[in-house]
């Protein structure tokens, strides 16, 4: 199966590293860096998994996740949320909005790979 992930993140070097490890693991990786147009990108690409950063330019990851869950076409897409804020309330907020997995920066490559495999196999 051609595993397809949309990485919504604005840090170029994080994008590069994640793109590398996922590509090597057989994923087709597409990237998007702007919060405002992220929802449109999700609808257009319809990946198997979305990796979503919380702090993005112009729009937060929470808003994008909320839109995804409200949209019939994207409501069931697995979302791995990345955040630099590991506070309980941030995790609760993400869970309330329907996140599939939540990962706090700095994370390891092994964690990302493991979580992505779990999401696509689920």
């Amino acid at each position, binding site marked *: 199966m051609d595993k397809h992930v949309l990485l919504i993140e604005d*840090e170029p*070097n*994080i994008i*590069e*590293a*994640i793109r*590398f*490890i996922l590509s090597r693991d057989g994923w087709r990786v597409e990237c998007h860096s702007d919060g405002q147009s992220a929802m449109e990108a999700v609808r257009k690409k319809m990946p198997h998994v979305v990796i979503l950063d919380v*702090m993005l330019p112009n729009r937060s990851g929470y808003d994008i996740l909320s839109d995804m869950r409200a949209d019939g076409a994207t409501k069931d897409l697995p979302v791995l949320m990345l955040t*630099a*804020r590991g506070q309980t309330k941030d995790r609760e907020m993400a869970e309330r909005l329907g996140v599939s997995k939540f990962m706090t*920066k*700095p*994370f*390891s*490559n*092994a964690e*990302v790979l493991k979580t992505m495999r779990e999401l696509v196999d689920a």
Partner: protein
Amino acid sequence: MPSQVLTGGRIRERRTALGMKQADLARAVGISAPYLNLIEHNKRKIGGKLLIELARALRVDMTTLTEGAGASVLAGLRDAASTFAEQDAELARIDDFVARFPGWAAVLAESKTRLDRLERSVETLTDRLTHDPMLSTSLHDVLSTVTAIRSTASILVEPEDIDPNWQKRFQANIYEDAIRLAESTQSLVAHLDDMESPDASANNPQEEMDAFLKRHDYHFNDLEHGRVAPEEIVAGDSTKISDAARGLILRHLRRYISDAVLVPLADVRTAIAEVGLNPSVLAQRFGVAAPVILRRIASLPAEIIGADVGLVIADASGALTFRRVATGFPVPLFGAGCPLWPLYQAVSRPMIPITADIEIASRSKHRFLAYAFANLRHDEGFDGPHSVESTMLILPESLVPLTSSTPQTVGITCRICPRNDCAARREGSILSET
């Protein structure tokens, strides 16, 4: 046993116990030393705001001054008993406790006071940590950069072969991120330093003035042409300004006007176009003292200067009384800056102009040309004490040619300076071990 000493005597006792001079306490509360002397000898009644100020300056409860330590201890113990009500303290025997164990009673009351103070500090700091957007952004920057470094480094240390082009690319990314991390950490530490004191809110008068001047880009076109008075500019500002900050701003704007009269905008524009941004030459051309031209350059509009310049002014104690921050040359909000700054060297060599090619001790290696000059002021005439004011203009290398191959390395402030071997260091750096 009730104390027979009156309030004035208690003030004197407390002041001497703290090793404080009468003049220092008087200055701290805004009264003259002779008047404080009268108060201390119970020749003047005291109460209200002044008593509150004195208690604050002497770091005691007001009741300690008015009713003696016994009353203050009793109040403290009652407060502790009500806070820890579940302990069911024997309030009916509180007088007996204080009389039999005055030392322990004082320790308990003081502990409660300190606990309250610490709780307030924790609350304030927690509030700032939660709501401070600058802190949130800085932490996010640091963590994101650490994440990028960790992920990239993990790829590079894996036993699997990586294409040499990717390898080079990842090495470059790590280098880039390491620089970014150093900068964002410095910025974060500087910010944490700023918020270290719970009382040092963003609204202290100095910060209010800094924010006001920044909102106006340090330039007031209407003042240049005498179209408005300083008071009108302050009144027209959209932000609420405290009385204390208003005083500082008006003093700054009045000096701005006198500088602008001596060095008119149109003339300085022409002069800079002809001779460049050279403070020495410009001061001679306008026949003004060096500090006037240094301040004037820092008040010119961007269209004339063409880049971000910095200006700091300090008094003889080293306290910074004015800050205009140039990009790459942060200025601490609290405490003094780096002792190696030409600003401070000028204080020890008043009336002698100092020029120095400086480089900031950080990975970014920003370079600047600094012009410093300390002038003596005799505001109180021949008999009064003279004061020193030192001014330093900071010009980035994009504005001036820097020819020295060995610029002088300076820091921002010791606490966030990475130079461990600096002879001028006055305290350890929290970056020194990183």
